[in-house]
């Protein structure tokens, strides 16, 4: 289940950044992918839509955190929402 969250988050990041999926790992940062602040906000929005969760306003704000941070944030938000894998609305 956890791996599923991780791969779905990384799929979204790859799709939104237009990068090859193989280049996107939990060790990558948004900065590495050349994602600017507005693109990062859109990416977080797509992730929120896909999992039906709300992430913190400053999530991915400076782009220097690894994507593991984003994956962790989704796990925490899902746990908060009381389900392991959210409704796959736009996944």
């Amino acid at each position, binding site marked *: 289940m956890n791996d599923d969250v991780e791969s779905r988050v990384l799929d979204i990041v790859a799709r939104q950044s237009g990068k090859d999926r193989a280049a996107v790992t939990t060790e990558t940062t948004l900065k590495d992918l050349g994602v*600017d602040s507005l693109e990062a*906000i859109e990416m977080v929005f797509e992730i929120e839509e896909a999992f039906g969760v*709300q992430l913190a*306003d400053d*999530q991915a*704000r400076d782009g220097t955190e690894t994507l593991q941070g984003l994956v962790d944030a989704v796990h925490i938000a899902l746990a908060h929402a009381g389900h392991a894998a959210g409704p796959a609305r736009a996944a």
Partner: protein
Amino acid sequence: MHAVDRTAMPRVVVTGMGAISALGHDAHAHWRALLAGQSGIAALDHPRAAELRVKIAAQVRAFEPARHVDDRTLPLLDRVSQFALLAAREAVTAAGWDPETTPGPRIAVIIGTGIGGETSRDDECRKLYAEGAARVHPFSIVRAMASAPASHVASACHAMGPVFAVTSACASSNHAIAQAVLLLRAGVVDVAVTGGAEASMSYSVLRAWEAMRVLADDTCRPFCAQRKGLVLGEGAGMFVLESATHAAARGATPLAELAGIGMSSDAGDIVAPSADGSAAAMRAALADAGMRPSDVDHINAHGTGTVANDVTETRAIHDAFGTHAARIAVTSTKSMHGHALGAAGALELVATLGALRDGIVPPTANFLDRDGACDLDIVTGGARRMAVRAALSNSFAFGGLNAVLAVRRA
């Protein structure tokens, strides 16, 4: 830079101002609250506040439009036009100007607004899409159109010359005032009623701001290390601008000279501000006013309280002013009246003119610790009594649209 011979052009003076904001319903109340460092930011008052993540805003409180507008006119007016009308009437009264004494075609009204009659538009859309209504109110268009505030103010002050709205997001007020200055200098009109108005806190717009993740959840702390973002505001600021000769002929005492305007576009990122673009607008305003950097004692900053704006604006002030930057008293009154978007520049010009007139600069409220990246003389703690010979008021909008006003003692 292209040198303009300004000696042949009429000087433009401000003879009256009016305001309505979270700090009060007239310019005096707005100014007194700013001097006291009193913040108008409070819990969001909205029918759907419980559902929203936006919890705070700087809203106009206890406003009863029926006290200011007759029964027949009121249904035509969105909240944004109500604000504009109230502030314009105050400015005209303060100027001691009877519009009937000036030929209508020689009067302009130019009003900035980011979005116009937003809450009317949102209400009608809700009825249509959420409630399945078959029709919307017949006044929907005239309430919502962005030029409605300008039209209503024109009717109220007999303006039959150029009347229109200007929109450039958060720089709308300053761009509008700049157009008025240009028309006065060109001799197209003798008087202009100009400024900005905004009242955009609809459910959908609040949701849209949430989605941008630029709102602070505590308060607005411009230039401060702990700043977390902007806080939305609303209101209107209006001014009577005249050619100096028109003002003198009717025996008016100017509040100040609107000495220079500077406009620039970053032609770059849709949200990230550019220090070069901001500095270019400040330099242009100085050149237009015939001011040297060392003439400027005070800047009312754009100072939104976002991480990006305040650092970029600091760099721009250093770029434009060089070593003199350290000697300029800088403040962001958005810490108190919030970010009133299209009305921001107008509410801030009221503050800038107050500083010039009274020799006192309002503080940047809610300030905790200095941010090394914002190394300016930020006025904090309380208002600072000082001689202000000349001042700038900065507005830098999303989309890279910059407009700066330069004022000096008349």
